[in-house]
């Protein structure tokens, strides 16, 4: 791992507002993401984990707003124009969403799902190059090449999730945000998909923010761990440190539940 920050978040606060009511979803969150690091963010539903991920992609839309700084390539993502954001999204920062069942276009074959990304985001118009990229992407997540002719409903949950991983990473992004990529998969499929994802991240040298409520998955994947509750990061450090010496009461409870399950 090279000690170089690729993304740095400072005093990030996000306020959701709807019908005149305001809700602080994220409060004063700060962290750095080094090149090649996998940062796990754990927390219960409503803790603000996904909101942080959305803010990094510039997906917080008015009337909701974000304050603070998210520095990527010496620019603040929160102040970028939509045009510039669109250049970064998918090409440099990409996201694997939680709903694998709905994230692929159901009326397009897997191949067309890939082609639209390659055309729109990578600006490649060479058909032979398309083929090569798609085959390579599918093989890198251990899928047979034949699946590209199939439609999303013909594939199992684990296969769709691996397609989403390869689709998100086809552009060789620098930062990958994975939001609950394995909920609703059984334990064998879950760890299999995670091992594929980890392998892919490590070989491409990208950094990842791995958001989940599943602590075993984080222990398997991540280098560092941040625990979120009520919109704040209450504990942050290397995974082994947080697990062996939890400081906060909530983290202790969480880690306690984890070890209970393990033994």
């Amino acid at each position, binding site marked *: 791992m090279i000690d170089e920050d690729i993304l740095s978040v400072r005093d990030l606060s996000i306020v959701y507002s709807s019908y005149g009511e305001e809700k602080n979803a994220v409060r004063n969150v700060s962290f750095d993401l080094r090149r090649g690091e996998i940062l796990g963010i754990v927390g*219960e*539903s409503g803790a603000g984990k996904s909101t942080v991920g959305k803010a990094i992609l510039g997906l917080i839309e008015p009337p909701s707003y974000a304050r603070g700084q998210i520095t990527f390539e010496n620019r603040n993502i929160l102040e970028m124009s939509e045009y510039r954001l669109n250049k970064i999204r998918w090409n440099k920062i990409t996201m694997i969403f939680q709903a694998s069942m709905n994230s692929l276009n159901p009326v397009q074959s897997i191949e067309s799902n890939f082609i639209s990304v390659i055309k729109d985001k990578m600006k490649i118009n060479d058909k032979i190059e398309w083929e090569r990229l798609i085959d390579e992407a599918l093989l890198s997540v*251990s*899928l*047979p090449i034949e699946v590209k002719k199939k439609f999303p409903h013909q594939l*199992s*949950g*684990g*296969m769709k999730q691996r397609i989403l991983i390869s689709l998100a990473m086809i552009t060789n992004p620098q930062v990958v945000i994975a939001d609950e990529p394995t*909920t*609703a*998969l*059984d*334990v*064998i*499929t879950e*760890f*299999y*998909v995670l*091992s*594929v994802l980890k392998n892919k991240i490590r070989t491409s040298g990208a950094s990842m923010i791995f958001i989940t*409520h*599943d*602590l*075993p998955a984080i*222990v*398997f994947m991540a280098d560092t761990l941040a625990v979120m509750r009520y919109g704040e990061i209450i504990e942050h450090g290397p995974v082994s440190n947080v697990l062996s010496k939890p400081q906060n009461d909530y983290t202790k409870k*969480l880690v306690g*539940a984890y070890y209970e*399950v*393990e033994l």
Partner: protein
Amino acid sequence: MTEDDNSDIVEVTGVSKYYGTKGRIVTALENVSLNVKRLENIAIVGETGSGKTTLGRITCGLETPSRGQVKIDQIESTRYRRTKLWRISQYIHQDPYGAIDNLEDVRTILSRPLRYLLHIKEESEIDEKIIDALRLTGLDESYINKKGGDLSGGEKQRILIARAFISNPKYVVIDEPTTMIDFVHRDEIIDTLANMGRNGNTTLMLITHDIMIVPKIAKKAAVLYRGKIIEYGSVENILKKPLHPYTTFLTSIKVNNLTENKSLLEYLQTYGKERQVGEPSKKGCVYSSICPLADAKCKAQSPDLLEKNQGHFVACFKSGEFRIV
């Protein structure tokens, strides 16, 4: 105790279930036999597509088997009148978001089993019973006026549990109670279920892929693989002394094992890759296509479920030989 109490609440004998899709026949269950003793909670463990939901639905009368026979409380499931059957057996659906109408209030949802199954007419009595049921699941009485849409996933799950238990059934099937719920609430739901199972005369069947929640609820467990029961016994034996290679593999998938043990991770990767390749072979053991121990005999003959140790059944020619080093 009456004689009734010694009999099995559910007896499944030689049940097969086939689904037809697009001219293709999919086998969900193949020749499954299983008896559930009264007040002895059982867990059905298996991965996606192993047939565990189908087995659960068949044992509470929601589906009829294509072949074989299911007796619920000593009477064949197809001979019941619906209302009679729902008084005996209840089913908790795996998706709480889909099982509760967002526009209905909790009172309406929970009063239905009381009105139509127990034929209670007094409004005050209905309210009383609903509040009792809510309390048992850890919700307070203010929930009675809330609408389905105002509830979180965990609260919906609790309402579903309350709805199943409110008519005091003899047998409840719980399908994946924790998949939609985050880890903090997971333990609470499991504790609630364990409590509900303890007081009263209800037998639970827990259907899950999460082997870690099994010991808190069930005493017995059956492992399903591609529509067949490959191992059956006490939860302790299945978790600590598994005999079938698949059960050994399934119980050893934990983070510590995966990070420390390279061969387990490698096997997981071959398993994940192989599993997507089509149907299991019609001949031989269902696990033989991917089993590291499989030889010619495994590929030619299908092993029967036989008692290996006392009360511990396994369907494997090489039981106990597979070890994760």
